[in-house]
């Protein structure tokens, strides 16, 4: 029996897939001594061409996704669906694609700066994006795992993309080893879930899941661990600082944002659909994880001297904030998570791009002191960095404030609704943590504005592409803070319209 297939549902993935498959071919064809254009491309032009080509694919995918978001939800196949393209999937895909586009734009000059301008970069990036897009829409354990691996394996390579740098190699190896370990745990959990419920469909598992039975819960716990690793929540976070620090900066920005976006999509879907019967128990565990992530992430970030490492800990803290919305578990909570993921992507990529621009002569300049005097030498970069830091710290009227506000507001409203004080405490701890976080975010503008640059420093001029990234992040961080309402309304509707598909509770 052949299932009814709706190829059109995969519309957003197709351009990315085509890009991922054809880009390496284009790269080697261009690298040949005699090309069909009869003269070889220089490495730099090759890089630019590939970047533009991948950007094109991403933008086409973006347009299709936006259309999809506005249109009705679609299911890839009849029967037990493998892929559900609902509003949430479309929105998360949009965020992933935006993050990827900004990363591509920010990579062109950076790759040349660190002498790693290999064409495979873009193909790997696109493969990873493809995996993320499937991850956000997978509604089946098999699909989920495949997508997760499709997302992760290129990232292992990308983390070690600076082949000559030991830090980068170390980063890749660590990421790979611990990542495989986590994948193993996840797979084990999935196997147990399948064994216990007899289905790999998230919806079916949701129907058959027995929260009283120990093996069921064991499976659930292992799946949560596996996804917890991907979002780098405490206590599955320790790899993040090492990996983020060692990986090429553009890749770090990509890993810190899009991977979390996609993994949060999967986490929300798994929790809301498959593990819904065990929600109460799981939310207790996630509560602890959220509090630990926020607190440990922020406290550890205080003492970091390396910006990438600091941002790694900060990203751990942000995972804590995001988990608040997941724990709230209402449409409002999910909408807040979606909004925050969007905001988080912009503010984090903005910060990483500034760090990437500073790299020069094959060396990253990623210590906090390396930013000294930036407000004088590169005012635009300094302003973007400052706003990103303020946004990450959640200072109004930046987008970061709005994101946090929605998360904590959702928690409080839900707390009132069900009379659960633990949600209030979560919000209070979150607010307290964002107060702590200022201590380290503030250090960056402090150094940029209130310290003179060492005479030897001569930060690079941002190139055209990088300027685009900086201005985009700047605009997003400001606009999402002062006129956030339309987009948040779209998200509320998205979450609501996705309800019958995302939550798949009704057959």
């Amino acid at each position: 029996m052949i299932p009814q297939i709706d190829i059109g549902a995969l519309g957003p993935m197709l351009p990315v897939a085509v890009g991922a498959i054809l880009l390496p071919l284009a790269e080697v064809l261009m690298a040949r001594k005699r090309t069909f254009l009869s003269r070889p491309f220089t490495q730099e032009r090759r890089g630019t061409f590939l970047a533009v080509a991948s950007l094109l694919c991403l933008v086409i995918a973006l347009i299709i996704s936006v259309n999809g978001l506005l249109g009705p939800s679609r299911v890839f196949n009849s029967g037990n669906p493998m892929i559900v393209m609902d509003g949430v999937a479309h929105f998360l895909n949009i965020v992933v694609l935006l993050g990827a586009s900004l990363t591509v734009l920010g990579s062109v000059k950076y790759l040349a700066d660190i002498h790693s301008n290999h064409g495979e970069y873009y193909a790997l990036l696109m493969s990873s994006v493809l995996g993320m897009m499937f991850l956000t829409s997978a509604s089946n354990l098999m699909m989920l795992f495949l997508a997760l691996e499709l997302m992760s394996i290129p990232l292992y390579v990308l983390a070690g993309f600076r082949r000559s740098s030991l830090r980068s190699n170390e980063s890749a190896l660590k990421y790979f080893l611990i990542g495989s370990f986590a994948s193993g745990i996840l797979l084990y959990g999935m196997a147990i879930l399948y064994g216990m419920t007899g289905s790999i469909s998230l919806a079916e598992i949701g129907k058959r899941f027995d929260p009283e039975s120990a093996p069921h819960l064991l499976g659930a716990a292992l799946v949560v661990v596996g996804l917890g690793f991907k979002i780098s929540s405490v206590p599955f976070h320790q790899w993040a600082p090492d990996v983020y620090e060692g990986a090429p900066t553009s890749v770090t920005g990509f890993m810190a944002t899009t991977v979390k976006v996609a993994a949060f999509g999967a986490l929300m879907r798994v929790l809301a659909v498959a593990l819904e019967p065990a929600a109460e128990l799981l939310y207790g565990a996630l509560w602890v994880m959220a509090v630990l992530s926020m607190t440990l992430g922020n406290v550890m970030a205080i003492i970091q001297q390396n910006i990438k490492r600091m941002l790694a800990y900060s990203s751990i803290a942000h995972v804590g904030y995001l988990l608040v919305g997941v724990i709230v578990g209402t449409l409002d909570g999910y909408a807040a998570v979606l909004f925050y993921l969007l905001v988080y992507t912009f503010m984090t990529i903005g910060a990483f791009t500034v760090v990437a621009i500073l790299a020069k002569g094959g060396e990253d300049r990623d210590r906090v002191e390396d930013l000294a005097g930036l407000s004088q030498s590169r005012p635009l970069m300094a302003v973007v960095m400052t706003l990103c830091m303020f946004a990450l710290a959640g200072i109004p009227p930046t987008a970061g404030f709005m994101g946090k506000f929605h998360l904590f507001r959702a928690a409080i409203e839900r707390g009132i609704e069900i009379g659960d004080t633990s949600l209030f405490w979560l919000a209070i701890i979150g607010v307290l943590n964002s107060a702590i976080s200022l201590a380290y975010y503030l250090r960056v503008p402090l150094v940029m504005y209130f310290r003179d640059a060492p005479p030897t420093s001569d930060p690079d001029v941002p190139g055209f592409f990088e300027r685009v990234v900086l201005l985009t992040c700047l605009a997003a961080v400001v606009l999402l803070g002062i006129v956030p309402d339309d987009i948040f309304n779209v998200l509320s509707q998205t979450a609501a319209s996705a309800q019958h598909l995302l939550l798949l509770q009704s057959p």
Partner: protein
Amino acid sequence: MSEYAGLGLFIALGTALVLMFVLLTTLLGPRLRFAEKQEPFECGEHQVVSPYQRFNVKFYMVALSFIIFDVEMVFLYPWAVVFRDLGWFGFFAMLIFLFVLTVGLAYEWLKGGLDWN
């Protein structure tokens, strides 16, 4: 009961065949003893060496290509069996799959992954 008879026969014949080979080699084979021959070995490699020994990366390239196309075969066999039932849909699905693999092969080729020297 009778359906297991074939299985029993299979096991018995298999065991007998192996025993026969062992017996024949011990009876007929020439016996020359020297040091290297006394060592256990596998695939031409010494067994007691550092585990951090390096292999030429080209071995991996070949091994990976081999596995990929091996998996392709694994997919092709069941597909061929139900090819008629799947119809054009199945045909194009497999075409896409083969295309993706071919692109990979082309990439490896152009990149020089298949050149031994």
